[in-house]
């Protein structure tokens, strides 16, 4: 799946109990502060790892609280893989 903020939201909408409400979330506000609970976030991170074939270590979780931060983080990770 192409990396875009819109697709990042779709992946969460497909797995979270909040469904399509996620599509209207603010890109720059913490995803959990917008109502996604800690267990849905675990599932989300696993779905992202599988969708984009990247590893998001526990130590990086704090860096990816918003969709904007997540997009940037995944972009850098995928660029690293492409350039290696």
């Amino acid at each position, binding site marked *: 799946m192409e990396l875009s903020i819109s697709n990042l939201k779709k992946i969460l909408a497909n797995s979270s109990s909040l469904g399509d409400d996620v599509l209207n979330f603010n890109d720059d506000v913490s995803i959990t502060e917008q109502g996604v609970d800690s*267990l849905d976030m*675990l599932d989300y991170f696993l779905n992202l790892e599988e969708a984009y074939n990247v590893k998001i270590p526990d130590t990086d979780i704090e860096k990816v609280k918003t969709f904007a931060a997540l997009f940037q983080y995944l972009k850098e990770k995928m660029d690293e893989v492409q350039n290696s």
Partner: protein
Amino acid sequence: MVGIKEISSYIPSKRVSNIERKETFSTDEDFILNKIGIVNVAVKENNENTSDLAIKAFRNLEKKIAINKEEIEVALLVTQNPDSNIPHTSAIIHGALDFPESCACFDISLGCSGFVYGLSIIKSFMESNRMKKGLLFTCDPYSKIIDPADKNTALLFGDAATVTYLTEDPAYTIGNFTFGTIGKESSNLTCTNNVLSMNGRGIFNFAAKYIPVDLKNLLQKNHLEIKDINKFIFHQGSKYIVDTLIKRTSIDASKVIFDIADYGNTVSSSIPIILEKILHNTNDKYILISGFGVGLSWSSNVLINHKN
């Protein structure tokens, strides 16, 4: 062929309410009911030890079925929280229940996968030694090692014990097993200085990634298709983990049992407690059981109704 004749359990009557602790752990009722799925955790009394719980499970078994203790040839206990390191707790149970001197006893150190591993061990042990009657105990009272202030574990784990009676005249025979271990991930669930520590994300990822693949391997090994299975009993870690396994497989959700709201995740006892409730339901031909956790390890099996 050795199989499961009867199962009995003992769940202590004392409960700690998760709802009453919701403010302490900054959570809410909806999360407790619909995500964790555990309203209360069962907690043993301070003066009850691991062997005491196991013995009470056996007393409950005696109320269900006539057992001649002189005929018990092996008694195994799955635990990682024994009475003490020495002697093995199965020997203490042996002494308290006055099993015969010819009865073999040993403990098995495994967590949430332990019941399924234990079934394989006792079946092989009995068949290779031509034994006719054996007992598989599970008892891992995590209240001994839980930090009551740790949200990751305190809301999940409950105390219980079970005993499974295996004979050559079983209600269910035991199919082919699958096993696995991801030792590199073992640090996700540890006990150091007598305190349990769990990385919830590590355990979640492990179960979500490995168990659906294992189920496919298990069905293939037993020459069955997913639609053939009447009931699925996954280790009852939390509602969320069981729901995740349903989502990641093509299992009919109505066939999957989750029933720990009143007592919690009882580690290696979680599967036999559920199994006890449906063991004599003649409508079920195949029951799939899958245990996973500490290690990180897993084991799965298909039980076959011998009378169907």
